[in-house]
């Protein structure tokens, strides 16, 4: 590849609410610029993990370098970063934004502006990005590009007069998007003769090449054989190869200012690299480090246990391997009376939890039980001890507890005025304290302090539903505050199910207990006998439901002497029964654990 002047480089992130078509647009851009041949192309080609393909969502941001010959006759290098739309993976978006000068904002022309549209635009503006807006899915009969344009102006306050109407699916107007990128987004700036200064955007593990580091060159250049230093961790490495993704991996001799590409340098573990770190040349370091990123903090915790205790070591190995590629997931060993040995794991949110769990069971063929998601509580004991409680099951006897402290967040919620009432009600119901209410253009901005424990289960879902998807939500963890919390236990067939116990505020215990009972009643399949489901605080039952008994499960047709087929079915059932032993006589399906907690009241 010949070197191209920095003026001809454009770096941009594609941002949008979930499912508005970012990855599909990326497909079209790759296709039109010839990055992949028709034969190599698949749908959402950048979503390379199985789980991404299956769920049709992006989890991991991806970078591609495209060559585009524009109408002005010049050839441009476009570095495209496709980002995830789901809020659990918002940190992926902020990293990508930091590596670019512009954003391509995709808005679904039938759905209009949604929560993550707003959140992402504000992040892009914070990163001083120029924004090119495209209205996607205009091929749909329900598309209303004009209305959505108006909405973008009213709700976000962005000039939408030049928004490009496109269909990423049919390929309509994609060329216009490329022209808009070239003419409306700025080129990066940088000094090729200055000492090397590069941003460590991302890193992941590749079975063949080891750790691959995604970098954005700010100043100077990076070359094969160069000894580089990670300024934050103070480690030095020799660059083995550098190059770009087209999206295929292509080696290059050198990466220069404005370019986005990869390096490999015999780095053993992803944990050795710190996303947001500054990479410089060891013998000629740059004067100042880049600002870096806020570290990602797991906010939701849950226990993961092998169904079969013999799988514990396999689970440990699987978690280690998964973490190689997903540093945002953390785990430490724990043991539970009912579930034996397992791990307490930290996640970025419920979707992240679900995905990790699914990858563990699928990629590593492990059968798992997940316990109720929870946050970390600080418990002051009467004897002066301080206990960090990650797991409600370990809650000490209330008699010995002086005080329980729980994490609170400060949430910023932007919502169209018409939903303000419902949003406020939701926050009040979740023990929120209003801090501020103001208007940004036509949108209301409410700031609330909320206990994180009220947020981890289903707050996003509720917020989305009460605001028809228009409210956006962002938060920071603030402090620990004392709270009147009690342990709510769930009893199935009179036996406590550790994995379902949780700490709740006393005033909310009864209604939560009732909803849990109702939920479990529907989630536990009928057994041969009637199953009582109860919620209790201490020894006191506060809610009760029953799972009716199964009435019939056989048709008992004739199989002649072919009992092999029935035996295979029995093998499956037996597996379920093995797991069931852990809850006395009742088989609680794994899905029930997460589903029971994803409830609304």
């Amino acid at each position: 590849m010949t070197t191209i002047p920095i003026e001809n480089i454009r770096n941009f992130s594609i941002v949008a609410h979930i499912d508005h078509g970012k990855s599909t647009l990326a497909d079209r851009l790759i296709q039109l610029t010839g990055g992949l041949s028709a034969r190599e192309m698949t749908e959402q080609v950048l979503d390379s993990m199985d789980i991404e393909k299956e769920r049709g969502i992006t989890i991991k941001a991806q970078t591609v370098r495209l060559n585009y010959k524009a109408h002005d006759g010049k050839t441009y290098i476009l570095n495209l970063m496709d980002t995830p739309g789901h809020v659990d993976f918002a940190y992926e978006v902020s990293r990508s934004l930091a590596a670019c000068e512009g954003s391509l904002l995709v808005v679904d022309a039938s759905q209009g502006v949604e929560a993550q549209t707003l959140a992402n635009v504000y992040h892009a503006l914070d990163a001083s990005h120029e924004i090119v807006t495209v209205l996607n899915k205009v091929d749909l009969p329900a598309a209303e590009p004009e209305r959505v344009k108006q909405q973008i102006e009213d709700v976000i306050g962005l000039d939408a007069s030049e928004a490009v109407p496109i269909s990423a699916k049919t390929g309509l107007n994609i060329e216009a998007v490329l022209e808009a990128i070239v003419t409306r987004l700025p080129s990066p700036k940088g000094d090729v003769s200055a000492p090397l200064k590069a941003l460590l955007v991302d890193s992941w593990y590749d079975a063949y090449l080891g750790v691959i580091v995604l970098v954005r060159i700010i100043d100077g250049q990076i070359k094969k054989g160069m000894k580089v230093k990670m300024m934050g961790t103070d480690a030095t490495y020799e660059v083995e190869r550098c190059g770009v993704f087209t999206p295929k991996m292509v080696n290059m001799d050198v990466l220069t200012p404005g370019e986005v590409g990869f390096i490999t340098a015999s780095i053993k573990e992803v944990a050795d690299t710190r996303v947001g770190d500054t990479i410089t040349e060891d013998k000629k370091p740059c004067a100042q480090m880049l600002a870096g990123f806020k570290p990602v903090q797991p906010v939701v915790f849950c226990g993961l246990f092998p169904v079969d205790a013999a799988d514990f070591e396999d689970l440990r190995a699987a978690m280690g391997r998964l973490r190689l590629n997903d540093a945002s997931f953390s785990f430490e060993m724990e043991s539970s009376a009912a579930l034996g040995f397992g791990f307490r794991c930290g996640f970025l949110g419920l979707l992240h939890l679900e995905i990790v769990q699914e990858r563990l069971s699928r990629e590593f063929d492990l059968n798992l039980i997940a316990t109720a998601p929870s946050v970390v509580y600080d418990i002051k004991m009467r004897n002066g001890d301080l206990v960090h409680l990650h797991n409600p099951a370990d809650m000490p006897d209330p008699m010995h507890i002086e005080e329980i402290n729980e994490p609170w967040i400060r949430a910023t919620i932007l919502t169209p005025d018409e939903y303000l009432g419902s949003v406020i009600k939701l926050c009040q119901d979740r023990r929120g304290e209003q801090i501020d209410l103001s208007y940004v253009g036509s949108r209301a901005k409410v700031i609330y302090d909320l206990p994180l424990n009220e947020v981890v289960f289903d707050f996003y879902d509720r917020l989305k539903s009460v605001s028809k998807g228009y409210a956006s939500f962002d938060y920071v963890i603030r402090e620990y505050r004392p709270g009147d919390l009690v342990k709510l236990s769930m009893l199935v067939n009179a036996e406590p199910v550790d994995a379902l116990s949780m700490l709740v505020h006393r005033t909310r215990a009864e209604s939560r207990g009732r909803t849990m009972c109702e939920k479990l009643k529907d989630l536990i399949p009928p057994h041969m006998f009637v199953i009582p489901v109860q919620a209790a605080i201490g020894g006191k039952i506060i809610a009760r439901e029953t799972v009716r008994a199964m009435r019939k499960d056989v048709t008992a047709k004739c199989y002649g002497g072919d009992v092999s087929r029935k035996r295979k079915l029995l093998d499956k059932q037996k597996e379920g029964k093995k797991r069931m032993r852990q809850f006395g006589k009742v088989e609680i399906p794994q899905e029930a654990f997460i589903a029971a907690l994803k409830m609304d009241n």
Partner: protein
Amino acid sequence: MLGKLKPVEPTYDAGFGVYVHWPFCQAKCPYCDFNSHVRHVKVNQQLYIDAFQREMKHMAELAPNRVVNTIFLGGGTPSLMDPATVAAVLDGIAGNWQVAPDVEVTLEANPTSVEAERFKGYRLAGVNRISMGIQALNNTDLKALGRTHSVDEAMQAVATAASIFDRYSFDLIYARPNQTVESWSAELHMAIERAAEHLSLYQLTIEDETPFKKLYTAGKLILPDEETSRQLYDITQEICEKHNLPSYEISNYARKGSECRHNMVYWRYGEYAGVGPGAHGRLVTQKGRAAFAIEKNPEKWLEYVAQDGHGIVEEEQLSLEAQGDEFLLMGLRLVEGIDPKRFTALSGRRLDDERITDLVNERLVEITSEGRIRVTLTGFPVLDAVVADLAA
């Protein structure tokens, strides 16, 4: 406990049966997943006779010196066999094993007029019991089930069978779409009037890869709900019991002493040789109890037999666990239940006492005065769960 396995625990001898599978039918019924094939050219029965005989010889080498207590010609539609074919098959059996003087020889028949005409010939060939697939006693449902016979034709066939055989039985499928407790009870009463000593009453099962499964998945075939299906089962027990045809197995009803002895061999987990396309067998050889499955495709089977003298495509030495499971799956279908000591002899472990106690407390299972464990009338409708519970 886990010592060497003896060939058939002598005290538990549940008999030896030979099953012969005839894999052809006039038309394929949309609910059926049995190994049945429709051929538009006439089947050359001589080829099959030869192959049956060769395969039987092979089975007799695997399980020599047995005394055959029961023979079952099943299908498919064995009533499409010429009586001469049946005679040759029975001769083949007699040539390879010793046959008990009171051997039961059942042939499965479809109740069309053409087939009923052959009943006499079957009798002469040595068949002494006939089992007819009648399935329904109203023409609309027969049509919906894809059957090629009418109620009248079926009743005619029953009359013919009654005039020729001492022992006959027929099958009905119930819990059909739209069936109510009232309509089924009327139909069952009518069936009992025509029945002699034995009835098989199966609830409709939607099997994978059948046209019924497609309809069912598409929501175009609606089965009675769980509660109705339970009531249908309960009323079936009640009516049959009242008419002196008590259930002796989850789906089979007979006067005392008139049970199908061949099926009892399966359910008591005896030994049986399976011959013909798609047949299954369980034989106890030097190495222990083994499961055999035969190639299902008729033409391929002919080829295999010509080449190797048998069409066995699967042979599995059953583990102790598998034997225990099969014993429970089969034995708990029977009203007489199982002997837990035999379970231990087969599987090398004891049934979990705590689980038995739980099941007894739920009245799903009871322990007889001889110490047998049997499923109760309340337990039968949830038999799958009971078996899984005991097997786990």
